[in-house]
């Protein structure tokens, strides 16, 4: 017990005496952790963005103007019965005409040509929303059912799928880049920890020599280095947590504004999972640092 406390004391002394070395080490570890956290935030925002876009994908199914109303409601009922379908909006011919006129209220030429056609050229329309982008092929297939096929003039797929694909491929690419960057930083951080321990051993070689000659056990000689590496991990994760938390707190409302006031839930996500997120980072970082420290001690600490 006494020995453990003293090893901790020695570790803190070493940390303080080689302050600049410690600072550089911790900074590098913080940098590494930040890339990992940025990656996590990105993941979170991207999935929100995809969900946001997916909510807005819809298929407009245009029926021939002559189609009987009960056939329309029948089709709507059939679609509502599908598990993939979130919502079906029925737009009658009159409603379609009104919307079209509204949309083009400023455009004389269009309104005029509409007049020339005479009557209502619009048929009834079903606007179908699904739960996910993947559900649309099934829904479109379902509409090919001979029951409806002959009534349908056209099926129009809104272009959100393009956007989703673009979000997906962009985030996938950023994610890959981020992972490579994290891996590189982690490698550098490991080397830096290794080098820090190497230098610390070199600086303390006299002290270590004395320790051994006056009968300190090997465990006691090694313990401060391992504890010091624990301190590095602890400080790094703590700093990172502070930086990430305050950045997220600032960014969260901005993201929400971007998604039309709908909260991204980023801050909430961090508040709810912080012990898990940063605990995991601490554990992994500590394991990696310990390994680097042990390799350095094996190589440079003659015992």
């Amino acid at each position, binding site marked *: 017990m006494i020995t453990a406390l003293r090893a901790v004391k020695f570790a803190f002394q070493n940390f303080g*005496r080689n302050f600049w070395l410690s600072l550089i080490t911790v900074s590098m570890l913080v940098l590494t952790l930040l890339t990992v956290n940025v990656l996590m935030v990105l993941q979170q925002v991207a999935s929100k963005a995809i969900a946001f876009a997916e909510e807005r994908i819809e298929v407009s199914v245009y029926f021939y103007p002559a189609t009987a109303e009960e056939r329309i409601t029948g089709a709507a009922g059939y679609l509502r019965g599908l598990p993939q379908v979130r919502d079906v909006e029925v737009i009658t011919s009159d409603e379609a005409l009104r919307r079209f006129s509204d949309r083009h209220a400023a455009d004389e030429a269009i309104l005029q040509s509409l007049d020339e056609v005479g009557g209502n050229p619009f048929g009834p329309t079903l606007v179908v929303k699904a739960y996910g982008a993947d559900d649309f092929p099934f829904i479109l297939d379902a509409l090919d059912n001979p029951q409806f096929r002959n009534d349908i003039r056209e099926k129009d797929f809104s272009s959100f799928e393009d956007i989703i694909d673009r979000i997906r491929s962009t985030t996938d690419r950023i994610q890959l880049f981020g992972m490579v960057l994290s891996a590189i930083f982690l490698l550098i951080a490991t080397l830096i920890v290794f080098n820090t321990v190497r230098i610390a051993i070199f600086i303390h070689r006299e002290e270590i020599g004395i320790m051994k*000659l006056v009968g*300190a056990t*090997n465990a006691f000689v090694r313990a401060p280095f391992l504890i010091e590496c624990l301190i590095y991990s602890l400080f790094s994760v703590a700093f990172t947590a502070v930086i990430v938390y305050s950045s997220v707190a600032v960014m969260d409302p901005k993201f929400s504004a971007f998604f039309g006031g709908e909260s991204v839930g980023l801050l909430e996500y961090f508040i709810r999972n912080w012990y898990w997120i940063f605990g995991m980072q601490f554990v992994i970082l500590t394991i990696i640092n310990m390994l680097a420290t042990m390799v350095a001690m094996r190589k440079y600490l003659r015992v």
Partner: protein
Amino acid sequence: MIHFKNINKTYSPNIVGVRNVNLHIRPGEFVSIVGQSGTGKSTLAKLMFAEERPTSGQIAVGGWDITRIREHDVPLLRRQIGVVFQDFKLLVRRTVYENVAFALEVAGTPARRIREVVPQVLKIVNLQEKGDRYPKQLSGGEQQRVVVARSLVHRPKILVADEPTGNLDTIHTREIIDLLRKINEFGTTVVLVTHNREVVNALKKRVITLEGGEITSDVEEGRYKL
């Protein structure tokens, strides 16, 4: 107390440290080991506290066969042998008190015991007033006395001193030798490695002479020859 039986120590690749050493040092003895530079005096001393392992032969310290002592047991041995060594200095960033306390701290001694022992050993070396000085605020002789004090914290049965007066003038040399003599009178076995003629002649104790790694003479109440 210390038994060497047919001890050979060869450093790689082919350098003789000591050769064919047979030696018996009895409890309470004061033994000087003399010889020219490079004749194996330090090697002999290091073998006693397992800083080096013999290439062949057998070593026992206090009845404990340490010929092939396990790494794990070395700290135990070190706590029974006080060591004052040429290149075994004080920590410059710690005070005299802290330097002495350090040897106890790293061995897991309780704080209360440390507060007891440190003033005691500082008193033995007559530095009880200078506990809060830093090494560079002390003379060479005083520094060496702190090293001796540090070697005494575990109340060792054996004290091995390798050229403890190497860098000291005559007056400080006498101080250190008197100190070792005093420690010896309290019952500690003292092994002193030196090449100082006056010291050896004034001691009138057992002298072992090494030449080329071999013991060439071993006399009670000896004098420095060569």
